[in-house]
């Protein structure tokens, strides 16, 4: 174990391995960094931290460390960097066990040797398996495959009291005992540290194509979505992209991006049938079986642009009203961009403008309970985070979530107040 601590409350021991700017979280420099190489070592670090009441933040690839409330101080940054192995790929059983610190893209490169993959996407190259579970972050293929929690069949956790435990197992069907993998999904490292996880996998599709349909207005787009919903077509992804700003021509404002995965012969039939439902949209289809030229850029483009990033949910049939809300925000001076899962009713809204504008849009989203729920600010500067609680209300779940937190993390050491619990 590389242990760069001198003690839970002291400065880093080794001057040549101090925490750097890259280690800061919302401007807070961790007092120590630990890089355990096994589950037992992770558990030992947590046990020690509990004993000394030292706050611990778990870091995977570090791609989402800006998400969450600003910490007041961080005792130990526990990096899963050295827990980066694909432990087992049981390809005949379509399952794989992966350590928490393994990068999603590198894991998938290995799984591809047997024509399989773990359909978890991220906008960030550095994103790890543990980070994907902790944030339950997902991409457009959620439409078909769900979020990480839906693919998870077993998990190994290190608890703050130093115990190393498991839940679930290696088989795709299993209802023995509590599903702690679900509990940990979305917990943002607030309940336990993820050591490794077992997933069900899916075969790589024999063929896939992406169709992009550009609409002149939102009505054309929602009509096309309704037509798609009435059809028996089964896209693997059904994403909506809306950008409204003074520099965006209205003809370019609304897009549907659809992915189809199928057999080579059937794929063309799906594309033709879909094209017929897109009304007057300008439609392009690209074969992306061999190489993804659309989806990674699609995912990254939103994060590459400036502004706060707000995650929210809505009823799928309310999409037209979501866009109307965006129109109002644009009129008031915000540059707004939506990338979402049209059929799930979930997405990211990027809001740019001056501080007052950003705060106003967030407040209004939270006030519009008839339209939005679960409005969470993912990326924001210190100026915004000082003014709003990034998580918002957990609603009725808050009490139980707090009780579970107290049960598993008695000393309250995990995540330095950054998480939802």
């Amino acid at each position: 174990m590389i242990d760069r601590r001198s003690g839970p409350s002291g400065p880093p021991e080794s001057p040549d391995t101090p925490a750097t700017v890259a280690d800061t979280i919302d401007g807070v420099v961790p007092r120590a960094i630990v890089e355990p190489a096994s589950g037992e070592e992770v558990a030992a670090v947590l046990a020690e931290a509990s004993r000394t009441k030292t706050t611990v933040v778990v870091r995977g690839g570090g791609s989402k460390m800006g998400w969450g409330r600003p910490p007041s101080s961080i005792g130990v940054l526990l990096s899963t960097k050295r827990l980066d192995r694909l432990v087992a790929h049981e390809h005949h059983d379509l399952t794989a066990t992966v350590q928490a610190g393994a990068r999603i893209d590198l894991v998938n490169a290995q799984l591809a040797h047997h024509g399989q993959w773990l359909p978890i996407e991220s906008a960030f190259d550095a994103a790890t398996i543990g980070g994907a579970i902790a944030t339950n972050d997902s991409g457009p293929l959620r439409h078909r495959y769900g979020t990480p929690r839906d693919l998870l069949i077993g998990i190994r956790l290190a608890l703050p009291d130093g115990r190393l435990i498991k839940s679930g197992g290696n088989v795709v069907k299993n209802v023995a005992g509590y599903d702690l993998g679900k509990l940990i999904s979305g917990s943002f490292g607030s309940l336990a540290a993820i050591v490794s996880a077992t997933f069900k996998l899916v075969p790589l599709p024999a063929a896939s194509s992406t169709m992009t349909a550009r609409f002149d207005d939102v009505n054309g787009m929602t009509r096309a979505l309704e037509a798609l919903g009435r059809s028996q077509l089964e896209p693997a992804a059904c994403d909506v992209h809306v950008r409204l700003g003074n520099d965006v021509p209205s003809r370019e404002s609304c897009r549907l991006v659809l992915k189809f995965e199928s057999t080579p012969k059937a794929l063309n039939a799906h594309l033709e049938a879909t094209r017929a439902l897109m009304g007057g949209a300008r439609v392009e289809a690209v074969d992306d079986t061999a190489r993804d030229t659309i989806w990674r850029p699609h995912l990254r483009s939103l994060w590459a642009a400036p502004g706060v990033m707000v995650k929210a949910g809505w009823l799928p049939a309310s999409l037209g009203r979501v866009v109307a809300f965006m129109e109002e925000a644009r009129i008031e001076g915000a540059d707004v961009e939506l990338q979402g899962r049209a059929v799930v009713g979930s997405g990211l809204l990027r809001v740019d403008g001056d501080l007052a504008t950003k705060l106003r849009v967030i407040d209004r989203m939270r006030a519009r309970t008839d339209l939005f729920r679960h409005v969470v600010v993912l990326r924001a500067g210190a100026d915004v985070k000082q003014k709003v609680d990034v998580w918002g209300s957990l609603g009725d779940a808050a009490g139980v979530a707090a009780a579970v937190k107290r049960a598993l993390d008695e000393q309250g050491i995990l995540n330095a107040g950054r998480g939802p619990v």
Partner: protein
Amino acid sequence: MKTVDDRFLAELRGICARPGEVLTEPIELLTYECDGLPHLHQRPAVVVLPSSAEQVQAVVRLCHRHQVPFVARGHGSGLSGGALPIAGGVVIALARLNRVLEVDIPNRRVTVEPGVTNLEITRQVAPHGFYYAPDPSSQQVCSIGGNVAENSGGAHCLKYGFTVHHVLGVEAVLPNGDLVRLDSAIADAPGPDLLGLLIGSEGTLAVVTKVIVKILRRPESVQTLLAAYDSISAAGKAVSDIIAAGIIPAAVEIMDSLSIEAVEAAVHPNFPPADSILIVELDGPTAEVREQFEEVERICRHVGATTVEVAQDEAHRARIWKGRKGAFASMGRVTPNYYVQDGVVPRTKLPEVLARIRDLEARCGLRIGNVFHAGDGNLHPLICYDEKIPGQSDLAAKVGGEILQYCIDAGGSITGEHGVGADKAEYMPRMFSDDDLDVMQLVRRAFDPQGICNPGKVFPTPRLCGEVPGPYHAHPLEQAGLGERF
């Protein structure tokens, strides 16, 4: 924990005041002594039949105030004793919370009370071209509340997943009487996935009073075939080859000769004579299904099918499924009693585990039928015995336990869809360490510090004197001639 007393009963009658809402007479309690695993039975002190979430909440509050244990019950079709009453405790029967509250086709959501049956959801949305995907064999009678408690699957869960993949939110009463909503019709509630934890927690964390599910568009095309084989390993090889070809069928089922014999006697599906039968179903867009189905048919023949029968129409398909779904109920034609197990193994371990089961069958002298969800390795060994022959009940239980051990040895699980309940709680330490179980208990106590919400289930406790795990026994209603199994 305490037991029901007169004061408690008086208060309970104040909450549920209409005639027939509070049952205390032994004859009335008979139905509620057990669920679909009748050898485990216990008379509760009282059964209450609330008609609203508010009444459920008031009842649970009362139990909490008096520290009286309670067990929520759906339609009693569970197969693990999950709804087994507690002596001196309360059964909260949710059969009267059976309203479909909202059918929202544009958003593909349906909101129901827990006593609505699984199949009723599909009935509600079928005219619009939709269905509810989880399809346990008991779907005509089982309640959606029970499905949530057990995280029910079904034959089609290989492709479509379990209840946890189809429930968007619940309203539930916590053991302290708080009424909470966990998640909602709108996706992405932040924080730990408490809903995912609750689903499959076997009624030990809360009593669900409302369930929001998502519905799916009926697939454009469904194609089903039946292939007959001389050996179960050949049928298993066909399954492996289908999956290796990158095809995920909607369902893959295998039945062995004993189960074929039973269903032929009972429901006459006209299966061809065979050692084993494989049923494969594909669904999805027509063009895709057509192409993949040709490949499935080719694989089935290639590995040595003696017959391949492709369902030519919906009636033919229904006949094949009638044979499969009627397997448990048909066992009565070949054995006076049977005990069904629910272990899971990694699919690649199926031949090895099935061979061990066949060895065990030869050694123990009891016939063992095998019906299983081959795609996901979920075995349903049916251990045949005659309770009138001294020692056979105990032997069947022992054999069941040994099969579960084979599943654990193979890296599998003691239960794929029936739940641990009271039946398999004693096997949990074979799968989980003390620390694993203790941490699960910590979570349980966070919900239920008093330990009054369905105690004695999931986690091991010492068995009652003379209590034997496992086999089928006649339900008290069957014994009394008041009901029959189907």
